[in-house]
């Protein structure tokens, strides 16, 4: 089932997160030339590790939904299923918009700098994800729920 595939992916992501956070903390403690004592450096390292783990987790989740990893098992993710078709159609339609958003973000961030350059990529990510979600919902309505 889909939840089984996602559960497997979540377990993999959780284990990876633990390793990365511990590694980050260890590297933080070992780092020299940074402000604060060993505990503060370790905490910062662990936080960076947690953020990296979060990115890795999202990457694994998306690849799972698009049947790109061994954890992508179950009838919902099988080739030919209506669920796979919804993901593929939404992803295909969202890709050109994602390229445009990335280009716009890169251009504005390069020209503006400062706080805008810091937060614009996050805003761009939200737009891309929302675009995909709305398209997936539309295709689900058309193929299944309408």
């Amino acid at each position, binding site marked *: 089932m*889909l939840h089984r595939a996602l559960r497997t992916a979540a377990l993999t992501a959780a284990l990876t997160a633990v390793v990365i956070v511990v590694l980050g903390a260890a590297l933080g403690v070992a780092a020299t030339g940074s402000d604060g004592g060993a505990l503060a450096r370790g905490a910062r390292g662990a936080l960076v590790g947690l953020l990296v783990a979060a990115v890795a987790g999202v990457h694994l989740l998306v690849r799972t939904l698009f049947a790109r990893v061994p954890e992508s098992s179950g*009838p919902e993710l099988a080739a*030919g299923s209506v669920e796979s078709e919804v993901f593929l159609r939404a992803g295909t339609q969202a890709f050109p918009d994602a390229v445009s958003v990335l280009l716009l973000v890169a251009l504005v961030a390069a020209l503006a700098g400062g706080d805008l350059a810091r937060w614009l990529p996050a805003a761009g990510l939200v737009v891309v994800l929302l675009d995909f979600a709305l398209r997936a919902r539309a295709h689900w309505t058309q193929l299944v729920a309408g």
Partner: protein
Amino acid sequence: MDNHVRARRAALGLTQAQLAERLGVSRQTVISIERGRFDPSLPLAFRLSALLGAPIEELFVPPDDDVAVDPT
């Protein structure tokens, strides 16, 4: 695309879940196909044909404008 999948399935005494399991797809996929909302891929159509014991041409009814053109 209109089809006779539901009728053939019922004639064989299969539930939607059973057919889905044998096809290796979700039950929702079978439901959407039977309602004519989702056209199966060619490999899936062939598996349906084999499981239901009917040629693809008997299972699925293409829209009028997709009917084969007379080559003459």
